[in-house]
């Protein structure tokens, strides 16, 4: 009963000082909204990456130079085309080894022009990564690679942008400012993988690419294992073989699961850091609440004195002011959650930044804002509760 009364009094006090209450709440609103939005973006990014990696297909071992970790400076690859044959002899079948060499280049046909990711690939890329083609075309062949043919397979988006509705097979595109390539096939649309728009790729023979880019290495190798059980054996074999061939160099062979784990950890940590930064603003908001409550206690000294004279016990006064503080932050928290969820949904809708609301982030934000009210309300409330009624009544 008394708590209901205290709640009513607190609501009234907030209503009377509307502007001040709103400004005080603002800090908490911003803090909570920031936490909710950043966590949503963080978990959205994580979901997306995980989906994409799963989309790469299972049983694939990626071989990259250097120590595999996110955030480490990329190591320049020393792997070459010969390594396909070399590793083929080690693992038994070179048809399951894909190599790529990537570069961003301009692509032009007639008046249409775009910037696209040009992938130098061998004939195995399509099988290893399972990339279906539209009917009426073909993928790169071993002969294309061996004879450095100027042929190209277009991603669906490239085809659409350069050729519109016209079937590009048999037509020509100019890559990297002049070299003409004949289109031999078009990929089915597959969407994004790994943060890269796979549909805006062009695949050309890796040998042609090496000449075009003036290099003789490949960026990375991918092997398809015959079964999941075969993966560990494959990983050690490949790394051992490469380190034998390139003494002093480091190589990593990672699987999709490991990629998922690493990326998950990195993005999880990133989300945590973002949330922590946002939590600091929540903390600052809490200090603001504390500050305003102290002002409020001072301003209402006479009221407190009167209430005490009329029989309010210390805990009645404490709970009145504590409820006021908690109400302030809880209201701020609810508004902040609303804004945060709204902003996350809006961001996900209008921008490529993924944002996913996970149930725990609004729940946590709410709990934290209540806790902030209790934590930062205790000091002012206890000060109010301890006021000497004689002195409080005398103050003007």
């Amino acid at each position, binding site marked *: 009963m008394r708590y209901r009364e205290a709640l009513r009094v607190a609501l009234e006090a907030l209503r009377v000082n509307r502007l001040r209450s709103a400004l005080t709440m603002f800090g908490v609103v911003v803090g909570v909204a920031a936490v909710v939005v950043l966590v949503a973006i963080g978990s959205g990014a994580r979901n997306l990456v995980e989906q994409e990696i799963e989309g790469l297909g299972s049983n694939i071992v990626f071989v990259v130079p250097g120590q595999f970790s996110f955030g480490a400076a990329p190591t320049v690859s020393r792997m070459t085309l010969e390594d396909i044959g070399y590793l083929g002899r080690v693992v038994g079948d070179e048809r399951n080894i894909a190599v790529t060499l990537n570069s961003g280049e301009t692509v032009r046909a007639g008046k249409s022009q775009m910037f696209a990711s040009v992938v130098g690939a061998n004939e195995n890329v399509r099988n290893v990564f399972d990339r279906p083609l539209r009917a009426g075309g073909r993928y790169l062949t071993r002969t294309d690679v061996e004879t450095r043919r100027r042929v190209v397979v277009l991603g669906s988006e490239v085809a659409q942008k350069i050729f519109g509705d016209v079937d590009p097979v048999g037509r020509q595109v100019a890559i990297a400012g002049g070299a003409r390539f004949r289109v031999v096939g078009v990929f089915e649309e597959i969407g994004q993988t790994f943060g890269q728009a796979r549909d805006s790729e062009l695949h050309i023979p890796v040998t042609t690419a090496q000449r075009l880019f003036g290099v003789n290495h490949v960026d990375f190798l991918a092997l398809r294992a015959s079964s999941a059980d075969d993966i560990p054996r494959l990983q050690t074999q490949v790394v051992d073989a490469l380190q034998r061939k390139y003494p002093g160099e480091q190589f990593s062979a990672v699987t999709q699961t490991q990629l998922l784990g690493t990326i998950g950890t990195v993005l999880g940590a990133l989300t945590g850091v973002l949330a922590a930064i946002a939590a600091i603003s929540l903390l600052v908001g809490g200090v603001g609440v504390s500050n305003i409550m102290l002002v409020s206690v001072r301003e209402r000294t006479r009221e407190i004195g009167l209430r005490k004279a009329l*029989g309010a016990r210390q*805990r009645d006064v404490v709970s009145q002011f504590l409820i006021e503080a908690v109400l302030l932050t809880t209201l701020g928290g609810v508004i902040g959650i609303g804004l945060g969820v709204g902003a996350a949904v809006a961001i996900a809708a209008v921008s490529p930044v993924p944002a996913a609301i996970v149930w725990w982030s609004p729940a946590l934000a709410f709990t934290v804002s209540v806790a902030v009210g209790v934590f930062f309300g205790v000091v002012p409330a206890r000060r109010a509760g301890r006021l000497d009624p004689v002195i409080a*009544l005398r103050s003007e």
Partner: protein
Amino acid sequence: MAGTTPAPDPARPEPQSRRAGQSEPPSGARQIDRERADGGWTEERAERGTSEHATREAAIFEAREPPSGARQTNTAIDAEDVTRTYRMDGVAVSALRGVSLRIGRGEFAAILGPSGSGKSTLMHLLGCLDRPTTGVLRVGGREVSKLSDTELAELRNNTIGFVFQSFHLLARTSARENVGLPLVYQGVPRKERRARATEALAAVGLSHRLDHRPSQLSGGEQQRVAIARALVGEPQVVLADEPTGNLDTRTGNEVMELLERLNAEHGVAVVLVTHEPDIADRAARQIHIRDGLIERDTGALTGRDTGEGT
């Protein structure tokens, strides 16, 4: 929830007894008027002492108290050699230097004294807002020094009603809610609070101002709201600190008449703190305070020597 209706409840004898008390006013008020017209009220009453008057009070209070109540005496406040010393910047300042007095139930007394005499300190002690430095102070039968802050708050809530010079009403709060405030801390349900506040406002003649806010009321009306608030919790004593100090003479008179009437009708003791002799003269008993001591007390109801005539 049970108890939200003001219907008679066997566990709560107060409402019935209050009604019983109210049924008496006409005769009581007339009696006092007649006595005042005689001009010998004070003497008469003092002579009568505990006889007829006190018997009537006792009857009322017996009905008010639960049968098992420990407080069966006629004394509302009993101070024995009470001192109060403040420490200011390391220097001890004696505001009260040994005050003994008894306020009987239903008594109407005025505490008089110049500023700095210690009368405010005395009022704070009598109102249980403060504890004496030495001496024994009993309010409503409880020894104040032995009570915790919480018990003191509950004692104020149940035993004392305050009326202040500057009214001390909560702004932006209706008269009815202001009056109901002491009941909040008694844990009285909202519905019953409203009913009792309405009743108390009717008793001070403000039935037409229930939902007005203090800023919409005149000074006299505000003080009457404050008096209704002092009475709503059915205290034994109403302490009025310069209740007419912020009012003009005519309004002040009205407030005084109201206090007198409530004293007579409800049997509640009224202790008036004032520096105006005109106002103090209206009380049956004057207690003059000077330099932290009782200089003169015109009527120690219980006959115990409280420094009378010194």
